[in-house]
């Protein structure tokens, strides 16, 4: 596992998340949280893969970590969705999504060997988009439920 490479890619992901926060008009006070969440997301995923987890399981763990970190960083009742969006997008299947659409376009116009190659690319990328999205949702959903539960208990005890 190359730690310096993981730190570098995590830094790029963090900067990407913060810049995306600006594009999505996130309030200024959330930008630090988006930066940290972007870093954590990529770092956890890469470390997970380095430890032998499959890409999907590593993505699921990373999405879970993003919600926990966002909940720690943002005080208040709710975790802002924009922080989560910017945090998990570096994990997303954007490249696979584009490749999927390219393959879809090629399938309609290809013949013979090219058609077979395009069909394989189409199903492979469709699977990648589906499993990555599912992994992200699978990490975000339980983590948000747990955070909500803790917050409710805090509200109840205060």
């Amino acid at each position, binding site marked *: 596992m190359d730690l310096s490479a993981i730190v570098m890619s995590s830094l790029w992901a963090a*900067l990407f998340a913060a810049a995306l926060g600006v*594009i*999505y008009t996130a*309030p200024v006070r959330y930008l630090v949280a988006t930066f940290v969440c972007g870093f954590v997301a990529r770092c956890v995923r890469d470390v997970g893969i380095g430890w032998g987890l499959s890409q999907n399981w590593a993505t699921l763990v990373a999405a879970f970590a993003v919600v926990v970190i966002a909940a720690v960083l943002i005080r208040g009742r709710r975790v802002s969705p*924009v922080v989560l969006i*910017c945090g998990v997008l570096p994990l997303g299947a*954007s*490249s696979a999504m584009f490749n999927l659409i*390219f393959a879809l*376009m090629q399938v309609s116009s290809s013949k013979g060997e090219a058609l077979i190659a395009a069909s394989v690319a189409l199903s492979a990328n469709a699977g990648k988009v589906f499993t990555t999205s599912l992994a992200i949702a699978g990490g975000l959903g339980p983590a948000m439920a747990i955070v909500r539960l803790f917050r409710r208990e805090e509200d109840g005890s205060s």
Partner: protein
Amino acid sequence: MQPVDMALEAGLLVMRNGGSTVAADRSLTNILKGYQKEGVEVIWRLDFIAATYMADGRSSTVVRRVGPIKTNLVRANEVALLGERVANGEVPIAALSAEVKRIEQLPAPYNRWVVVAAALSTAACYSQVLGGDWGSLGIASVAACVGQVLRSLLYSRDLSVGSVTLLCGVLSAMIASAGLRLGFSQSEPATLIASVIYLVPGLPLINGFVDMISQRYLVVGVERIINAAFVFLILAAALALAATVLL
């Protein structure tokens, strides 16, 4: 203004500024709670919101058009906070209308050039996230920067999201393809995808998922995800066009 109208106004403000339906409904419910108004049933769609309630023993329904959805999460966030303060009795009902009007007037938190710099940064960073080389970083930055300038100009002319995305996507992808053709980088996919990443509809996509996961706004969630898929399709078409013409 009637309590239900006021609450609908707040919910609409969240929807029109890029908030999720969950957030919009929570704000609406909080404001109704502040008015101590119960028994209001609300139907949420991406194009309209309808609220039904009993008044003087008769059922009344108020329908409001959502209209074009833009992005200003500061406003959406302010409405959510206002809703919580109203529910807790921290904001008098008499001041609510003025507060909603104040939030409506809030400007975007970042000016045009800050957003252009952010688009440049997203493209640069994403090219590296995808494993591109330094040439890829440079090409994607320039492409996204020019595309975002065009995007802000087109949005100020009230063009639809689809046409703005197509025009900006084609321009950015053309610049990226030209840079690749001139040999500034060997990382084709990283450069091309990063050059249009600032146009990716992340907000509708995640709001759609949030709405669907909540299970109460399935229709709105599906509408949002289809909208996002349509934008993805436009971006892919823009990339394919540029790659076919220039590469």
